[in-house]
């Protein structure tokens, strides 16, 4: 179908964009921000939503930068998935970015879809929402009231719901660097390559990091998609120390998958346990291959 009629706004600066959003909110109007549109436009085309106003931010200069430092990667609101995927320095600092971006839809969608836009869409089956949660990243939002940084744990409120206010614009997201010596991996299972995943797991492992007596030798954390209402992160260090069966049991107890036409909740619960073990194994192999040793140098 065709989207319902709307008014389009084309600001050239962030100040104009947030002023427009504020003015529309003051009038009680329903407005949406349009960046890549790869999630929003299908929603409009199927008339699942009919906002009367679209604020198109594609004409705003300065929102398309990828800033890499030893602390992490800051991604502007107009950076397309494909650009971040190709960015070698960003992927050296945080390899989870590329590992997950490879699984975001199809290449054609990645050419237009933006990473920050998919975060703002807050789909719990989105790969980048899981990566932001797993890495403990944040989203920077601007409104006429000022700027604030929203940690991932506070950003995702529910399925397709973020804590962005109606008059706020997400201008960038920050993904912290992988810790020194860490290995990462991202695996998922989908009916067809490029489809929404039935389940997916990202893993960050840090071998030999714990100095505490009796603490697990390997720090293991996993982030999950498609099996909870908001991105779920679990510390599986103790479970991994107890063996792979313990990991599967811990994962299956913690997630809350739903039935849909693609898979039953039980099936999702089953494969998520297996995927978690695969992700951890792969992350450990990557740590062993020196993935975590090749750290970004700020002077490079």
């Amino acid at each position, binding site marked *: *179908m*065709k*989207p*319902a*009629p*709307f*008014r*389009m*706004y*084309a*600001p*050239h*600066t*962030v*100040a*104009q964009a*947030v*002023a*427009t959003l*504020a*003015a529309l909110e003051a009038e009680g109007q329903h407005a949406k921000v*349009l960046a890549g*549109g*790869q999630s929003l*436009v*299908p929603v409009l*085309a*199927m008339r699942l939503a009919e906002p009367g*106003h*679209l604020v*198109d931010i*594609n004409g705003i200069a300065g929102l398309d930068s990828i800033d890499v430092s030893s602390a992490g990667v800051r991604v502007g609101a107009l950076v397309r998935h*494909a650009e971040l995927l190709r960015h070698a320095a960003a992927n050296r600092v945080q390899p989870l970015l590329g590992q997950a971006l490879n699984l975001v*839809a*199809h*290449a*054609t*969608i990645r*050419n*237009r879809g933006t990473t920050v836009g998919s975060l703002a869409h807050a789909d719990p089956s989105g790969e980048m929402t899981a990566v932001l949660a797993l890495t403990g990243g944040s989203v920077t939002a*601007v409104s*006429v*009231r*000022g*700027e*604030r940084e929203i940690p991932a744990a506070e950003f995702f409120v529910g399925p397709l719901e973020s804590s962005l206010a109606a008059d706020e614009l997400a201008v960038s997201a920050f993904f912290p660097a992988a810790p020194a010596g860490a290995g990462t991996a991202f695996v998922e299972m989908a009916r*067809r*390559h*490029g489809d929404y995943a039935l389940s997916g797991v990202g893993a960050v492992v840090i071998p030999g990091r714990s100095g505490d007596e009796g603490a697990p030798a390997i720090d293991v954390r996993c982030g999950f998609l498609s099996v909870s209402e908001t991105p779920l992160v679990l510390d599986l260090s103790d479970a991994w120390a107890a063996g792979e069966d313990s990991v599967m049991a811990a994962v299956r107890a913690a997630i809350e998958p739903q039935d849909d036409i693609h898979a039953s909740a039980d099936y999702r619960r089953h494969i998520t346990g297996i995927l978690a073990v695969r992700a951890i194994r792969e992350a450990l192999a990557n740590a062993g291959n020196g993935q975590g040793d090749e750290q970004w140098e700020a002077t490079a």
Partner: protein
Amino acid sequence: MGSNGMTTSLGQAAQQAVPGETRRVVELTVNGVHRSAEVDVRRTLADFLRHDLALTGTHVGCEHGVCGACTVLLDGLPVRSCLLFAATVSGHAITTIEGLGELQPDGTTKVSPVQRAFRDCHALQCGFCTPGMLTTITAGLAENPHPTPQQAVDMISGNLCRCTGYQNIVEAVLRAAELMENPDAPLPDEGFTADEHAKGDV
């Protein structure tokens, strides 16, 4: 708050708000030619090409970004034209299936290597998905001129075809890569070609 100086009073902010529009003049370079039309802002690029510019080679299938039939090149990169509003891409360059061939000095158009490969390998039946396949593969081979069979499969994984079972399309990707390197590359022995069918050899 306001660490970057963006905080303004609400009065100042109201002055910065931009007006909304329901119609917009869209200007695009389509297949190397400057085109413009005034359209509704909700006009998708796919409908803009088909209805306003009469370029009906771009096909509209699912209208929500799943089937890939409407794929065109935006500044050289494949995108779904049903998921873009024409107004959003004003000022950019678009290549559609009508622009894939090479214009010859005598005014005729020579089919591109990818188009030739589709004919050589019989890579279409009903033809509905073909415009999206051709644009996707053209961009795919520009990025990776020597794909493996698996990479050829990956290249077209976002495009649905309900006729062929994809085998001949994958062959056409590999054949196109061959033709781009050597326009005179002979056809492989196995398999039937369109010419053989025409001659009644099979």
